[in-house]
């Protein structure tokens, strides 16, 4: 699904990622943990094609193709999805219109006709129930005036609608109360399939009680310094990041 090999990334000459190696197979859930400022969000942004980052070395292979030359929208059309830590408000554009536009552009990329309205609406209905979304939410403007929890739920709702092969969820748990966290995690779990993968970026172990990862990585100072099973997250919780610091 995703192979990252020796990825070095700089922002304005300052090296942030210093040789990342990561292998995610279909059907797997990976968690990337680490203290603030170690490059977790940078990694998410670079994979999804945000401007402003210099990849000085290495490659990102997604479904057998090096995607570094693709634009953000092309990567999305290839099946990548980024759940934002801080989703952006777009006043005046309803979620329904926004998603329909996105789905149709992705279909166009694949040479498909636009989604028929009844099919689209039925899918909206199904996914809304999955995330326990209120009916009126879909007619509201994208993220405008949403609470922190609503914004995160809306990210997972978009993910459910767009059905990506690989979803990267950047700090999806931040700002969530326990109920919202449960709903978001249930959504992610229900969307899990043998042919798709999820990378969860998180600061705390808490989310991983709900979304159980196959592999846990610890990102520290621009490198993945430790990888292991879900028990690694518990160990981190117990010993703290200082433990990594002393080990690395």
């Amino acid at each position, binding site marked *: 699904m995703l192979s990252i090999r020796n990825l070095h990334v700089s922002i304005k000459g300052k090296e942030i990622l210093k040789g990342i190696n990561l292998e995610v197979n279909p059907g797997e859930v990976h968690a990337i943990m680490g203290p603030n400022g170690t490059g977790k969000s940078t990694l998410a942004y670079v994979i999804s094609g945000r401007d402003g980052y210099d990849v000085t070395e290495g490659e990102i292979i997604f479904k057998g193709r090096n995607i570094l030359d693709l*634009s953000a*929208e092309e990567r999305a059309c290839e099946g990548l999805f980024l759940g934002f830590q801080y989703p952006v408000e777009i006043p005046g554009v309803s979620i329904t219109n926004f998603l329909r536009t996105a789905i149709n552009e992705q279909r166009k990329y694949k040479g498909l006709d636009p989604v028929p309205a009844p099919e689209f609406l039925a899918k909206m209905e199904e996914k809304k129930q999955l995330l326990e979304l209120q009916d009126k939410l879909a007619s509201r403007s994208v993220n405008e005036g949403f609470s922190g929890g609503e914004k995160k739920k809306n990210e997972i709702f978009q993910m459910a609608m767009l059905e990506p092969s690989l979803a990267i969820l950047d700090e999806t748990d931040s700002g969530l109360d326990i109920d919202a966290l449960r709903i978001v995690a249930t959504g992610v779990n229900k969307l899990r399939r043998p042919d798709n993968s999820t990378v969860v970026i998180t600061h705390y172990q808490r989310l991983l009680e709900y979304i159980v990862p196959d592999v846990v990585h610890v990102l520290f100072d621009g490198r993945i310094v430790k990888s292991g099973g879900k028990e690694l997250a518990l160990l981190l919780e117990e010993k703290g990041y200082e433990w990594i610091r002393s080990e690395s």
Partner: protein
Amino acid sequence: MEAGIVATTYNLKEYLQGVIIARKHEIGLNDTPVVAQKRADAFELFCRMGFPHAALEKWRGTDLSRALNYEYQALPEQPSADIDIEKIFKCDVPHFETLLVSQLNGWYADRNNLLQVYPNGMIIGSLAAAFRKYPELVNAHYGKYADDKADGLTALNTAMSQDGIFIYIPDNVTVEQNIQTVNITDFKQNLFLNTRNLVILGENSHLRLVQCDDSINHDVTFINSVTEVKIGRNATLDHYKMQNKDDHTTLINSMFFHQDEGSSLSTNAISLNGGLIRNLSHVTMSGSHSNAEVYGLYLMDRYQHVDNQVFINHAAPECESRELFKGVLDDHASGVFNGHIKVHRDAQKTNAFQTNKNILLSDKATIDTKPFLEIYADDVKCSHGATIGQLDPEALFYIRSRGISEANAKILLMYAFAADVINKISIPELRQRMDDMVKKRLRGELSQCEQCVLNCSTHEHQKVDFKIDLSKI
């Protein structure tokens, strides 16, 4: 040199002065003595002031010199009585029920029926005909609200205008239909037009008025339009100005609103295209507890220029005014926003709020925005804010990360920016159409055959289907 420009010997001011003197009788044919006196005074003022120029504070950002350097014809003939206006213009906004009032080259177009009196007492028709038939109404309001001393162009209009639209709504009448006025220019030469409208709303009356500017010809046109509106006690006016002119047109649109006690005004100027557009909204709140909402949206590109001048004159206590102007400027387009709020000493407990937000899409586009608050009362709430920015890169990335192309992501963000003002339109069919127009404008699809503001289908052009294509926005 461009065709039609005479660079050296021509002087438009002298030419127009000559026309006014030579054809004095014809111009003032229908005048009441009061109108005739105002005309004479205004002519003096125009001779003294001439055309506005960049040395005047209120004209600093708008340069008329190029527009004034063409050779124009000034007094177009009356349309013939057998003209079929439907053949020239037909509004096809779906389900938009309007009472259509047409002007052709400034003249009230229905020459067989110059003044129509409706069962509810409403009168609609030619202003020149109203001079003769309703002199008492005309004398009570005409020239009372427009400020000839403040601007040479307003004075020129008072001196030279021959006709325009007259609307009178009696006391306690709620007009159910939307009234839509359409000012069409269809002339084979360059045209300089002074049109003059007078709208009178009686006490407790209610009116929705949509003013559209359309052009059929593609010669150079200079429209100098003045509209005076009296809003009586507890009356409400919902007013829209739709502008989608070609790049050869200069449009000076001066609106003078006069509000009595307890009245409400909402006015919204939407400028989608036009070579040079200047909108003046001059609002005087002369009675307490009145309310004014002044909105505007402008989407300009190429070498287009738009200038919005707002003057809110709080002359009475406990009134509220709200201004919201938003604009997107691309290429070499330029814009001006000048928001003047004056709160008189007696106008205590005034609330006055002003916002102007702009997006510049190119580094050649410019906006000159200036709030000017003049406050003489001590118990007031006033605020103003102006922003100039580019599209938010974070938001662009967010949209693109969903698979939407950069070009469409930009359109979506611009549309989102404009939606604030579009959503203020309270007539649902008109809001829907403007929403479509704005989307088309932002996609660069507002083509020549839609240069008329509400997508007229002229005899030359095919009807255009306006269904929203959700795959694009």
